Every structure is written in C-alpha cells, then in structure tokens.
C-alpha cells in the first residue's frame, strides 16, 4: 500500500519546525508503524537526505521510548497501544498520515520527533521511591500484603513513562504519570511511611517542570498504553489534601 505522510521536521531545540510531505509506497500491512518509518528513512539515505529522527528502543511496548502523535492522536488511532505496537493494517491505502512529536512545554523537541522527557525523571527524583538502601531490607515474607493490594499497586506501577498522557491532555498535565507513582507506593505498607512528604514534593515538582492542571477529561486513560486508571489521580488528590490538612 501507499501512504502520504506529513512529518514534523525540526532541526534543533530552538529552531522552527514544519510539516514536510513524503510519499511512501511498498508498505506491507504486517509492518509496524516504526518499520514503515525505517523504510522511509532507508530511502532518505539513498537520496542523501537526513533521516527522520524518532525515539524507539524495545519495539515491544514496554520501554516507553517511542511515542508520536499520529493523525492527531497519541500513539495513533488504537487505544492501549504504543506506537511500536501499531501496525500498518490500521491504515488504508492512499491515506494521508500526519506525524508530529508529543508536544508540551515540559517536553521540548530535540530534533524531528525526538523529545526531551527528563521532566519525568525529575518528578521521580523528587520523591517517587521508597527509601530502602541495599542491605536494610527485612525478610520479604515478613510483610504480608493482600493479593488485591499487590494487584492494585501493580496496575499503577505498570506505567512505562512514555508521556502519551501529557501529549493527549488539553492542559499538558502530568497528573496520570505522577499519580500512578504515588498510588503504586502508597498502596504498599513499605511505601506508606513517606507518603505525605512524597506527594507534596512530587506535586510541587510536577508544577516546577511546567505541566498544566488536570481537568479530569480522562483522555489520558484512553490513550495510556498500559490503561492506567484515572482513579489514581483521585488518590493523588486525596493524599495531597490529607497532607495539606495534617502536615505541620
């Protein structure tokens, strides 16, 4: 099949970008979306042009490196899917496909579709951990944790940090990402001790990074490849309000 691509090309962080058109034929429906871009890049090399830069790594939906806006949707038309797991059978022959980077002030574009998501690392650094140094741990079965609690913590911990939640949010809010981490840790007994300080400093950091407010449109849950629930945002708010009320 043949596609008409319009791809965002931008030289550097501060330069102005724009959409450039490409025609790609010989696409098989079994290809993944990224393999289709590989094909285009191979042809660009033959023509002596600079390839389209995009982030990708594991190509099995778990590392969270890939991510782009495809036809105006984070990770493309499917829900619960990363860009690397999107296949060309989701597109029609002759279709025009728009490809842009995930956009947010906190996610500056480095080149073409590559963006800088270090803001997420900063949020985790501000408190997204349990302070257990190597050697301090007690016998693992000495802390029984109910089956459903572990499962709920897992649901939150499954976040791959791809940034689709921010990209699809009309306010570029990082509420789903931040709340998933808060939920994961506060659900577990070993994570409860630091919960008040954690939630306050992570929420502060989220602001410092320049993310917007959560308006509860719930678009993030729809686009999240791991289908992380927006109820975690409710839990983050609860933990935050509790800290607001009880902290000295």
């Amino acid at each position, binding site marked *: 099949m043949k596609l008409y691509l319009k791809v965002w090309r931008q030289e550097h962080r501060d330069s102005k970008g724009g959409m450039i058109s490409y025609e790609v034929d010989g696409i098989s429906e079994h290809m993944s979306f990224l393999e289709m871009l590989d094909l285009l890049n191979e042809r660009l090399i033959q023509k002596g042009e600079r390839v389209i830069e995009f982030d990708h790594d594991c190509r099995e939906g*778990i590392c969270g490196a890939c991510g782009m806006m495809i036809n105006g949707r984070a990770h493309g038309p499917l829900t619960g899917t990363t860009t690397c797991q999107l296949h060309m059978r989701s597109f029609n022959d002759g279709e025009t496909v728009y490809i842009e980077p995930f956009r947010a002030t906190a996610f500056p574009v480095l080149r073409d579709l590559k963006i800088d998501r270090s803001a997420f690392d900063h949020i985790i650094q501000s408190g997204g951990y349990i302070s257990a140094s190597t050697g301090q741990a007690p016998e693992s079965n000495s802390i029984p944790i109910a089956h459903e609690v572990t499962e709920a913590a897992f649901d939150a911990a499954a976040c791959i940090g791809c940034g689709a939640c921010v990209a699809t949010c009309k306010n570029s809010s990082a509420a789903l990402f931040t709340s998933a981490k808060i939920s994961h840790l506060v659900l577990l007994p070993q994570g409860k001790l630091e919960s008040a300080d954690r939630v306050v400093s992570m929420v502060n950091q989220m602001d410092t990074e320049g993310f917007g407010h959560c308006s509860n449109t719930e678009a993030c849950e729809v686009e999240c490849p791991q289908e992380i629930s927006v109820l975690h945002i409710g839990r983050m708010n609860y933990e935050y309000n509790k800290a607001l009320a009880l902290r000295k």
Partner: protein
Amino acid sequence: MIDAKIPAGDLADKWNNYKDSSKLINPANRKKLDIIVVGTGLAGSSCAATLAEQGYNVKSFCFQDSARRAHSVAAQGGVNAAKNYKNDGDSVYRMFYDTIKGGDFRSREANVYRLAECSLALIDQAVAQGVPFAREYGGYLNNRSFGGVQVSRTFYARGQTGQQLMIGAYQALMRQVSAGKVKTYTRHEMLDLVLIDGKARGIIARNLETGEIERHVANAVVLATGGYGKVYYLSTLAMGCNSSAIWRAHKKGAFMSGVSWIQFHPTCLPQIGETQSKLTLMSESLRNDGRIWVPKKAGDERVPNDIPEEERDYYLERRYPTFGNLSPRDISSRAAKERIDAGCGVGPMKNAVCLDFSKAIREQGRDKIEEKYGNLFRMYDKINGVDAYKEPMLISPAAHFTMGGLWVDYDLMTTIPGLFALGEANFSDHGANRLGANSLLQSCVDGYFIAPYTIPNYLSGELKAEKVTTDHPAFIDAENNVREQLNRFLNLKGHLSADHFHKTLGKLLYDKCGLSRTRKSLEEAIVEIRSLKKSFDHELKITGDEGVNSELEKAGRVSDFLELGELMCHDALQREESCGAHFREEYQTPDGEAVRNDKDFCYVSAWEWKGEAVEPELHKEPLVFETVKLTVRSYK
C-alpha cells in the same frame, strides 16, 4: 593460564570468607573516589545506587533518554530465588546445581554458588523497594515453575517482572540523584575506555543530543551494558542494544569469553517480512499449557487447523518424554530448527512451529487460559491480527541472551585493573546455557550485592594513586581516535546504509554461527565477515550531521558488531564440542543430542584482541569442579 582469584574454603563459605577479608574504605575517604557506571539496566542502576548509598561519587551513563528504559524492562517471566517458600525441596545448593547443570558444566562453581546464595537477599531488597511481586490470597509471596527445573522458585510480577525490578532499581538510582551522590548522563554513549598506567581511569562518551565528545575521569569504571544478541539484527533485543562499550574495552585489552554462546529463545514470533526489525518474545510460560508441533509431512501447505491430529508431530513430547514441552531453551530451540530445516516449518516463510492451546482450552476451559495468558494472547493478536484461541500461535526461535561477554574474575573485574563488568555484559554465571529467570537474578545480584563489595576492595588500593585529570595524554589520544572514527563515517562516500550491513551480518550469523554450527560454516563465515567489514569501510553511507544522528550512532555499533561477529566464529570454531547453546553438528549422538568433551574443553576460553583481521589469541581458564560431578545433561 589466567587466574579467577577464587577465595579459599568450602564452596558454601567462599563468599563469606571473601567478605570477611576484603579491604574496606572509611566513609571520609569514599567521598574522594569517583566511579563511572555505564548502563542503567538492572545491574548498572543497582550498582550505581548501592555505591552511592555507601558514599562514593557515581557518574551513571546510558544511551536511552531515561535510565528507566534500559532493556531489563523487557524481561517477562520472573526472577529465581532459593527461598523454598513452596516447601518443595529447594535450597541454595539445589539452585546452584540446577544452574551449573543448566549451563552444561561450563561455569565456575564458586560464582554460581554465590549467585544462588545472594538470591535470597535480592527478593527481600526488591520487596522493600516496592516491587509488586505476585502474592497468594494470604498475603505471602507466590512462585511459579520455569523450564529446566523441578521446583517452583520463580518470583514474578505478572508478565512484567523485568520492568518492575527495573523500576525498583531506577527509583533507588533517582533517590541517589536527588541526594546528590549520582549524576546521570542520559543520551550518552560510551565510545572508548581510557587506560592510564594499565588501569581503567575513564571513558570518552558522546552526548547524543548535542554531538559533543566528552571526557570523564574516575577511579574505576563499571560496564553494565547488557548483551550483544542484537549482533544477529533480528533478535528479541531492543533496537539500541549494542556491544560497543564492551567491544571497545576488549580492544583496549579486556578479554572476552564464551563469545559464541548465544541463547535462542524458543517462543518468539517468527519473521514474516524483509523489513522486519524485531522478533518479539512471547513469554516462555506459554509452554506450560501450549503444545508444540509441526506437520509430519514436509512441505505441507495446509493451514494448521486443517491438519488432522494424526498428521501432527509433537516433536518435543516425542523426543523428550520427561520434560516434553518444558524442555530447556537450547534443546527446544534446536529441536524446532531441526524440524524447520527438515522442511516441516509452517507459516508464510515456513520458518515457524505451532504452539497449540486447543487441548488446554478443551480441558481447562477458555476462561482459565484467558486468565493465565490473556495479555499474551492480546499481544499476539495486536501484532499478527490472529486470534490464538482459535488458531495455533506460530513461534520460532530467536537470538535472545548472550552467555558470553567480558571475562571477569571472582571480583567481577576484567583483565584490565579497575574495569568491572556486570550483568549480561560479563561472561557470567550461566555457562553455555542460561536457565529461565536467572538473568534478572544475575544482573541484580551483581549490582546490589557483589560489585559493592568487590569494587571497594579494588579501590582501597587506589586511594594513594596519582590524581589524574581529563587533560592527561591518554584522554586526548582516546578522544582523537573517537573523533577520527566519527569523521570517517560522516565523510564516507558510499551508497549502503548501516542497517544494510547489520542485516547482512545478522543473516550470515543466523545461518553459519546460529543454533548449530559446523567447522565449514564457521570458516566460511570468518571470510565473509571480513569481506563484509571491508565493504562497510568503503561503501557505508551516513547522512545528517554531528548533532542528533541515529545513523551515526548505528554506524559505530555495526562496525563493532562486525568485529565481534568474527570473534564469535573464532570462538565457536575453536571449541570442538557441543555444549549448551553451542551445538557443533560434528559433535552429536546418532539421535541428535549434544556431545560434550570434558577431557579437552573443560575450560573458559578467554580471547585477547590482537588487531583487525588478525587471529585473536586464546587464553584458558580451567574449570575445576570440586563439588559437582560432571554428567551428561539429559532431559529425556
């Protein structure tokens, strides 16, 4: 002869003896010591975080945009530990024995015993960090069984154990970043190792965001850069996985071992087209309920569901009645290849076998199967557009894990003083074949529990060493070499992309140094790889500039893969026996089982770099078995 420096004493006491007698550094002095850790997977993150907790200054490097994305995230099945929570007779010794036997008696007793011993503390550590391992309804940790063993010792977090352990280690690392003890350099690729007075004292790294070449100095360098299975191009690995850090260390004098021991994972999705970039792994747990078969008749064109029961060959159940579909990975993969080569393969490229759940669905009901493997069936559908509840899955073996890597002694130090290798990057504890759920274990144990003892032991001798800065001539030389190579790539006026060479090399290795090898195929491969390397040096074409440039990154990695590929063939050629993942067709029984040669090959091959297109030099580390008796590894 090289010395692994194994401590004295009984097997069970060696590690304690080591810890009791290793040299310590007082906390005030730790602040004066800098350590570079390259790689942020389980081994790298855990090592960097633990050393920082102890008080050292750590610089952590990764090529990904965040430490959390290292390829440890992709491990699905689980992590082994001899906790014996299932009360099924497990013990440290039994785990040690399973691992030694699984590795076909080609690993060191002392290392493997330490691995099993430290497995206990790892589970404790991970749970304390908040890793949500599966639990029973009573709240205690749950276990499952895995291929190649008869006890349930695998701890798991659904099908994402690697990711969850990785998040735990990443968070520990981030905690140290906020404490100011670790500085992270993401989107940085190590391009050379800097030696001063024969010791590792720093690295040259390229900032992949700006293209700048940077010099970093330290008192010790740790490489935790993972495996090189991507040398085959099509593999279960991430696109960015590479051998450049270890290979460039090798060219600076570190020996490589077990180079040709590559594990092919039996349950991967087959290649279906020429533009494919990845062979996705489907969890091995599927083999607990799925039955593997091919048509009895070669060249059968019917779709699998049209082939009647009596015309199906359940070859694993036929050949290995005791372990059947749960036979170890090397055996399952080889058996699949044998059938595919015999023309019985299925699928559009006739390169796959069927993994059939119809019997399990009939016996247990669809609900039960959905509960156990729902996410995998969904993933299969997502990638192939096929409903595996109705049709058998098509699977095929794919390059997965490299047992080989940098040779290390008991301290995990390479032959270069001050250069340590952890996790999959070292030649490790798995011998010639790794058991499922042991790789997460090894990388974590190396990073959390071993290197944080052995590195200070080395550093204690470095406190009085001469201070060096990045202005030292060795740094200038190394940087110039790196710049020269990058400029050469950018100025080549060829016409073929880096991927072209990578794919060609991969196919060549699959055919001639893959699941099975012969003297002839290996000798051919060496000649062909050398000519491919020549062509690469002249006909490569790189577009773009020195800034963000993924093609430039690939070129360096492919260049290293080409040299590494040749060493793999030398290693496989020299080892005239079949052991674990290394199957030389000349050395097999009449019914196709591997024949190991303990008389002539019971040693670790450690290869020394001698220059481009020059035969590498072999050093031998004899494997001494004091505790276990070498037996024929049988799963029949």
